[in-house]
């Protein structure tokens, strides 16, 4: 769609691969219109929820005559309301997200593609989508809407995003968690370069507010495998700090450190009932997303 749709991060081939999939909320969500997702509010819809004693003023159409025949008491049948979902995508735009080993995709670009296609899916299934970008502070905050116009605005904003400064994910997430009052789906797209304990506490904060959370942990493959060979002087994309290393001598220790780092998040998310997806930029995002959604829908 980048050409057809006019949006840089929306590719037709990727859309074709995920168009038949839906991102369905696992728990209940509080929406304003009917949709795919279970609502905490009981009404008179299709899915039976429970019985309630009849009170004056109730519509007699909802009386359960079978119960009346068995119990000689008046009960009203109540049904679960299906509503739409509010999805807030939190995209990390810190300096470290601007890293790319081979120069094709930076992590931020990868995350932007992911954000775009997720937004498209949500909008198409009548869910409200919002976008928040942040580094040390919130840079862009678009509340969730369902309108196409809102979607178009989101796409334009995505194309304007540039890697920012240092990362302060945990603090920002705490702020955002306090801001979202209604239960919604939080999608965090980040390299999670923050203190794991602090970050997990922030994610717990979302869970505490009864939000559902999906974490896309975006890493470059070089960050995992560390394929460097000759002597290298690395400079940090966020702090511009420099360090000279012999990659061969530290590779094993480095890989072990990264493994521990990833494992910490993976385990922490599992314990907090948060979906954790490791997305390395060498894996096409549409492939990664379709596989994730297919798996999620099966559960």
């Amino acid at each position, binding site marked *: 769609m980048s050409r057809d749709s006019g949006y840089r991060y929306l590719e037709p081939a990727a859309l074709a691969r995920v168009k038949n999939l839906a991102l369905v909320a*696992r728990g209940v969500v509080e929406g304003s219109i009917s949709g795919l997702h279970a609502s905490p509010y009981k009404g008179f819809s299709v899915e039976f929820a429970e019985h309630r004693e009849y009170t004056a003023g109730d519509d007699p159409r909802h009386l359960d005559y079978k119960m009346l025949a068995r119990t000689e008491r008046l009960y009203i049948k109540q049904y679960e309301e299906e509503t739409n979902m509010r999805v807030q995508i939190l995209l990390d735009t810190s300096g*470290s*997200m601007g*890293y790319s*080993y*081979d*120069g094709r995709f930076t*992590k931020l670009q990868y995350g932007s593609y992911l954000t775009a296609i997720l937004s498209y899916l949500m909008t198409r299934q009548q869910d409200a989508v919002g976008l928040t970008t942040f580094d040390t502070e919130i840079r862009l905050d678009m509340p969730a809407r369902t309108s196409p116009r809102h979607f178009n605005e989101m796409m334009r904003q995505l194309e304007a995003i540039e890697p920012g400064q240092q990362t302060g994910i945990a603090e920002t997430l705490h702020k955002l968690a306090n801001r979202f009052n209604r239960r919604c789906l939080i999608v965090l797209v980040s*390299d999670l*370069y923050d203190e794991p304990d602090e970050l997990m506490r922030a994610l717990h904060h979302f869970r505490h507010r009864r939000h*559902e959370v999906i974490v896309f942990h975006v890493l470059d*493959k*070089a960050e*995992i*495998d560390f*394929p*460097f*060979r*000759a*002597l*290298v*002087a*690395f*400079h*940090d*994309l966020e*702090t511009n*700090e420099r*360090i000279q*290393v012999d*990659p*061969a*001598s*530290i*590779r094993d*220790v*480095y*890989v072990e*450190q*990264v*493994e521990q*780092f*990833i494992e910490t998040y*993976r385990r922490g*998310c*599992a*314990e907090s*009932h948060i*979906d*954790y*997806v*490791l997305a*390395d930029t*060498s*894996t096409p995002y549409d492939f990664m997303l379709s*596989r*994730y959604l297919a*798996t*999620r829908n099966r*559960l």
Partner: protein
Amino acid sequence: MTPPEFPLFLLAALAAAIPVILHMISRQRAKHLPFSTLRFLRVSVEKTRRRRRIQDVLLMLLRAAALVLIAMGLSEIKVTQLSALLGRGAASAVAIVLDNSASMALADKGRPRFETARGAVNQILRELGPNDQAALFLTGGPPFDEQGRLEASRDGFLRMFNQCAVSNERADLAMRVEQARKALAASGAPNKVIYVITDVQKHCWDGLKKTPEEPADGSTDGQTQEEAKARKIPVVIVDCAREPEPNAAIQKVDLEAAVPVAGVPVKATVEVFNAGPGAQQRLVELYVDDKQKGTSPVLAMEPGARKTHAFQFSFESGGLHRCEARLVGQDGSPLDDRRFFTMEVNQRIPVAIVTPHRHEIPYLDESFYLQQALMPANSPNWAIRGSVLTAKDLATAKLQDYAVIYCVNLPAPEADVAEKLRQYVEGGGHVFWICGENVQPDAYNAMDQKAQGRLLPAPLREVRTAKAAEGRDSWHIRYLDEKHRALAPLVKPDPLYQSALIYKYVRMDAKAAGASVLARLDEAGEPLLAQRKIGRGSVIMLGTGAHVGWTNLPLKTIFLPLLVRMTFELAGTEQAERMALAGSPLVLPFDDERNPLRVAVVPPSGTLYELKTKAEPGHPGQVLTYTDTYDVGFYTMRPSAGTGANQVAFAVNVDPSEADPTKAEPEDLRGRFAPTDVLFADNPEDLSDTFKMLHEGTNLWGYFLWAVLILLVFETFVSNWLSPKAAEDQQQNGPPGMRRMGTRSRSRLGNYSKTSEVSKTSKV
């Protein structure tokens, strides 16, 4: 290391700096790359810092060491040079084992081998530097204080060297080499060499045993580390033997004599050995007390052949005689042309033969056969002077005038005679009782009891007669005491004594008296001849007669030597073998109660030495040990006066094996010396080639090459161990960034492939 090579080595060794320089250069070639975060890098660098430094230094050292080794190999450094470079103080320590055994007196082309050997020693001394240490080991001759002393000063060495001469001893080169090894092992000099200057006679190396191989586990199997190091010291064998001049040697002289007494013929068999390269014709002369007794016919001998000649002669008088067999004429070695031996020829021994009475017909006399045995001829030169007495004469005769008194078929003597006999025996006399019809056992036992049991060797019992009715007409002698010095030569052949028949004898209770049984009969081993020492003398009893009535023993061949040898034995004149080889100690034991405390020794030089005897374990009396036997000839020993001991003389000769020209094979010596390096110098007049070879030493370039190869393999291993994976990944996956995952990456990411899916535990 010679001057031109040393700077070359230093120059080449500078190459060791190359790895350091490369290391420094390579440090400045780091690529500058951005990275998302340095948090993991910092931790990794901190964790690997110490290990990486060690690895860097290790690699650098390995590479530098490889280059140093290459440099050393290129400079063709040698073992000795390396040792000299590393050593302190003296550069060399040299032990010279100089063979001065008798064979070194042999002349090669007119020049004695020992002179050649001295020339070789002088060459070695000239080759040594002023601080080099040297020690001299001689194989024979009188000991020197300086022997084996390793010193930089040449004074002691030269004093000993200038005084040493060819000895008469046999060389034990193996022992001397071992001593030299020990002396050198104690030296701190880096270069050590043992020179053995010898004629390489085979028997001189008999003591050289092959060194057991070291076990695979590296243990030294009983060898100390010092011994193992000592065995690494190279040995240079300088062969001083050339084309020898003709040489013959007297190898041995065998003496045979029925009895060593004056007038009795003696046979001296002389063996001559042609030790030279060509055939020889030689004469042998025999001298007794410096008087020529005879000359052999011409003995023609092929090389390596042996010829013998037997000289027949007799000694004109008793006493100690000095004899010598001597080759006539000159040859390559004069030392082996003479062979000395001594004989102690007995003086006439006074013996009394006491019979019951004189018979008019001599044959009927009881002592007829005894007289014939002891006094075979009326020669004034015969060793035994017999006197025939009657029983009555015993009362008046002066018994001390006789060495032995034979009492033949006497009735039991009266008490006074018995007491006289007892005193005679106690004082050192010997009474030989011979039985017969007049011997009444009861009367004899009574006599013995009165003499406090000091006259008979054993109580007598009844007289036994062989009776045909009982199925026996005689007894045979079935046993002779082979340990008895007088009887030992008569034990073989058996028929010599077993053919004697005994018809009648008096039984003796030898067991009860504790007497020594010298002869037994065949039936139940009844004693026939018994002896018992009493006081300083002894009493002997022959259970049968001396005439043919009781036995046919007097008619047998054994009768004469038996009685003569017994007489000599009792009189203390048995011939003893008194010969020794040069350098070996002379041991003279005394078993007489009157042991001499001092003995005068006169060696061949004629100088009189008075030495003290001393008690030694294994000997009942005093023992004289004389060790200064470096000269060949006669060593006379005179016990101090009044002890009753006789003068004796030892003949000391050159070891006959010194004439053996057989040389040790170089390969055999190399095998037995292994793992010691052995160098053979065949030209003792010019050892320059040997010195050159020693100075050059073993070229080490091959070892250095191996060391470099091993180091490089090790370096490769270490290097790959440190950074093998990146290279593998690069080769398998192509350039970094390509979307291919290598084997290692897949395995590493195995977990994350799963995590890229939804975590299975995340359910609401």
